[in-house]
């Protein structure tokens, strides 16, 4: 009977969504890319993925236990961080480096800044950049070790070679866009298959976990930018070049799963557009004019840092404020 007369503050109507269900949907969305990565790169990819996820969850648990904080490993966010990081690593990376990256992502990038919702940059990408700076050689060598590693990577597909399509593109060679779309190329574990990522992204859009706004504008901006670059180059406009830039490298993975991270993208509607445009411009600049073939991760963490500024200049006008005030005296 008591429940009938409970007085409580709003909200009075709740839906079943919580951090946990949203995060679980993101994990499900990542599964196609994960499975394709394992299919493409063999059992060693699975080992790296498991090591990353396990160490991310464990370090979150131990840190929160040690700091006497509420333990939040059940909300899937550490699993996502570990999974995303693993999908961003080359398959030949030593396991301890992958674990070190996971620990860095969770403890330094996420927990030291206050845990989920407080981190100013995407933990998985922060850790990826940490690893790229620390072990530049290992992080950019995409050749699969046939011997010498603890578990021999079983080669499922012949197409995996030392250079990624983007590196080949940068060197001025031609690439097979269809292969890049399907994903049987070299690269990090989860980035190769645009198709698998799009399936996962579509699932998230249908479940309304992410809005297609940021990924579409991001990829669109890169397309426009690379098209202009291609048209201005001496060989004239090359549609293949634009498609290769869209399907190649970490653009799809970054656009769908990292740029849309709730914590590190702007909350204002206009801010999201500005954010996605900046991402596209920076990614294209880094890729086309930078020293390295890839630019997605640096572009995203750089724009993560810009988010407070973007939000500041794009605060929407509240209803009743602004406009012309002539009518109301």
């Amino acid at each position, binding site marked *: 009977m008591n429940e009938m007369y409970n007085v409580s503050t709003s909200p009075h109507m709740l839906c079943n969504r919580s951090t946990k269900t949203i995060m679980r949907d993101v994990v499900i969305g990542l599964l196609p890319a994960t499975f394709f990565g394992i299919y493409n790169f063999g059992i060693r990819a699975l080992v790296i993925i498991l090591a990353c996820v396990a160490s991310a969850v464990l370090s979150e648990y131990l840190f929160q236990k040690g700091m006497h904080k509420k333990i939040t490993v059940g909300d899937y966010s550490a699993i996502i961080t570990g999974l995303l990081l693993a999908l961003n690593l080359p398959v030949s990376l*030593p396991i*301890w480096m992958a674990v070190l990256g996971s620990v860095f992502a969770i403890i330094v990038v996420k927990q030291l800044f206050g845990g989920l919702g407080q981190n100013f940059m995407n933990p998985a990408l922060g850790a990826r950049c*940490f690893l790229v700076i*620390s072990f530049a050689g*290992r992080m950019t060598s995409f050749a699969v070790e046939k011997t010498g*590693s*603890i578990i021999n990577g079983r080669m499922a597909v012949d197409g995996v070679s030392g250079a990624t399509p983007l590196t080949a593109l940068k060197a001025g060679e031609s690439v097979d866009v269809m292969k890049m779309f399907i994903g049987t190329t070299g690269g990090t574990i989860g980035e190769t298959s645009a198709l698998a990522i799009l399936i996962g992204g579509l699932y998230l859009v249908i479940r309304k976990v992410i809005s297609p706004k940021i990924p579409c504008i991001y990829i669109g901006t890169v397309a426009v930018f690379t098209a202009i670059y291609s048209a201005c180059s001496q060989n004239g406009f090359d549609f293949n070049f634009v498609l290769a830039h869209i399907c190649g490298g970490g653009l799809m993975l970054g656009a769908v799963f990292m740029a849309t991270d709730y914590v590190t993208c702007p909350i204002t509607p206009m801010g999201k557009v500005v954010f996605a445009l900046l991402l596209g411009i920076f990614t294209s600049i880094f890729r086309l004019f930078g020293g390295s073939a890839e630019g997605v991760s640096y572009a995203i963490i750089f724009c993560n840092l810009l988010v407070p500024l973007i939000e500041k200049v794009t605060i929407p006008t509240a209803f009743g404020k602004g406009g012309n005030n002539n009518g109301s005296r």
Partner: protein
Amino acid sequence: MSVINERLKNGIIKENPTFVLMLGMCPTLAVTTSAINGLGMGLTTTAVLACSNMLISMLRKVIPDKVRIPAYIVIVASLVTVVQLLLQGYVPSLYDSLGIYIPLIVVNCIILGRAESYASKNPVIASLFDGIGMGLGFTVGLTSIGIFREFLGNGTIFGKVIYTASKGNGIAPVSIFVLAPGAFFVLAMLTAIQNKLKMPSATNASSDGAACGGKCSGCTSTTCIAKNAVKEAE
């Protein structure tokens, strides 16, 4: 003797310029890529700091208040020039690796800070040992940061090889630690450990042990924990 001990202890532990006062961050972050660089920078600064404190303390009644900062700068700059030429002459390798950060000792905020807050108000002996204590505190800070960065990022300590990158999947130095971000990581971690171990310092001691002497009644600081505690008690 007690003032000498007190000044040395103050500089090295209680008001350690690196881990407690957070002063002189520019050389701290920039030159500590190896232990030997940290030690060299720390000792160079100590030499300049001790001499400048002594000279400024001697001249404290002569220097007019209005032009004291330019006067201090002139004194410090002369000393730095001397030290710079000595380093160039006797330890050219250290001189090369410290580079621009030797002339920049002139504007090191520890040196101007000690001149302004201590040497200009205290007698010569106390000022000299204040300079030595602060300098040694800075040396301890820089050397420990340097040791950690060199060990983690390069696998060596004072140039002595501890481990090297192995060919396969074995251990390898995490080279981010000898690059700029590593300086921030190591500094933050060591400061956190220092705070955690609660070495009595200016920022975590109770009011009677505080560097300000616990004179809360005349204090204008709004961030001091001890003062707020006194207020609440009232």
